[in-house]
């Protein structure tokens, strides 16, 4: 019986490809897609969450259906539906030109994220004591005004941490985009190691980039949480320390 544990790993290859053009392009796509999709997702989440708790049964139903359908199907399936399915069904040249693969990916991820954000925002809204809504309405605000000015700003505190988690998951989920021909970080690494067989080294390169992205956004999340605690004791975050250090005479918000 021959036991051979040879560890073949070449750190110089990692360094060689860390800033490779294909990798950089992939990283850029990943961040870009994730950022846009998360932003749109948050907006969709707010709209549909307000609908979900509305007194109008039609609004509640539409929102419920959206969440049920989007959460109940795999993202991969949704990607294929939007990119191939829609273009097959709608035989219009302008439509097909407008719906590029990249836009299909962004749209799919946005709509998908919107469903999850709806639940997060809804939970946030419902975590606010009913007395707040009473007070706002008693002062003459409409439901929508009360939502915008009183409920949602407070709900942010509850909403931000799970949203941060969603974004970090989103960064990694973008790797599925390769199914419709969009090159992002994971498929960039894959393309390179399919060529030079340095599987481990390229995966490490990708991991480094993912970690860099998620770390930066974790810092931003901590800042956002601190900002949302307006009126309460603001925790000292690394970000706020940096701001104070870098901005001469600048006051912390």
């Amino acid at each position, binding site marked *: 019986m021959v*036991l051979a544990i040879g560890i073949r790993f070449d750190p110089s290859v990692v360094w060689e490809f860390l800033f490779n053009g294909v990798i950089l392009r992939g990283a850029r796509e990943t961040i870009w897609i994730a950022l846009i999709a998360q932003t749109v997702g948050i907006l969709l989440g707010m709209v549909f969450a307000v609908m979900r708790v509305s007194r109008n049964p039609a609004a509640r139903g539409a929102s419920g259906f959206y969440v049920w359908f989007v959460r109940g199907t795999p993202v991969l399936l949704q990607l294929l539906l939007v990119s*191939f399915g829609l273009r*097959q069904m709608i035989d219009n040249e302008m439509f*097909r030109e407008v719906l590029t693969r990249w836009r299909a990916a962004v749209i799919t991820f946005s709509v998908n994220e919107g469903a999850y954000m709806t639940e997060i925002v809804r939970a946030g809204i419902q975590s606010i004591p009913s007395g707040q809504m009473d007070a706002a309405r008693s002062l003459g605000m409409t439901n929508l005004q009360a939502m915008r000015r009183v409920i949602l700003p407070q709900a942010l505190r509850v909403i931000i941490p799970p949203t941060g988690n969603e974004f970090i998951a989103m960064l990694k989920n973008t790797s599925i985009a390769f199914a419709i*021909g969009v090159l992002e970080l994971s498929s960039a690494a894959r393309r390179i190691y*399919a060529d030079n*067989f340095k*599987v481990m080294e390229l995966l490490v390169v990708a991991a480094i980039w993912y970690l860099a992205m998620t770390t930066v956004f974790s810092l931003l999340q901590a800042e956002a949480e601190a900002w949302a605690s307006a009126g309460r004791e603001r925790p000292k975050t690394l970000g706020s320390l940096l701001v104070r250090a870098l901005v001469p005479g600048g006051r912390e918000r």
Partner: protein
Amino acid sequence: MKRWLRRSLFLACVLLLATFAAMACGGEEEEEGGVTPGAGAAVPELEDGTLQILSDIAYAPIEFYEAGSNEAKGLDVDLANALGEKLDVKVEFINTGFDGIIAALQGEDGDVIMSSMTITPDREAEIDFIPYADVGTGILVKSGNPEDIAKLEDLCGLTVAVQEGTIQQDMLDDLNADACSDNKIDVVTFDQNPLAVEELRVGGADAVLADFPVALNDANQSDGELEVVGEQFDAAPYGIGLRKDSTELKSALEHALKEMKDDGTYASILKDWGLESASLE
């Protein structure tokens, strides 16, 4: 404190031992020799007397799943079954992503690769090949050839869909470095060929590059929407891929292939699939 330390060490030892055991069993077996059921030629290295073949089974008519079935069909499948018969072993196809298929072979996920794999110097650096068919590339376009494509160079400035990891992808990259360097081709890659064809069908690409028989098959299955431009070009041999150390298996397979050519099985299978032109006799 002491108790959890002891428990963790114990667990670590168990895991380590389990790992070694697994590695030992899955590792080199030159000395041990595999189980061979039948009389026939000695075919060592095979587990349970089965030849495990790694293949990207989405490449009709070479290897594919007929709609709604789990049975692999195609030229490669028939050739493989014939080889298995000659060697008196069972044959099993394992669906594997094409761009990772060589790594999978080296990781011993299977015994050989039979996946319409063209023999190239880059690939030969990693694995050994047994040539078995001669196939070129075809260009697939929308019926009526709206972009007037006649040869490869006409693709400059267009969008071409292709499967990731194929020689056709290399062809396009070479064009972009050379003949199309001023007017680059937008190369869009997909996991599997059918998706690349779909991209062409829905208007997201102007052409698809694939092995000629596959392109032809795609055109035939497209209800008149797609067509192949011209003839096949850059014909090169398909090879059965083997690990560099699978020397005994390689000679056994070469022997079996020769027998198939001698007794006419080879030619007859090619004829079944209309691919007599791919013959390497």
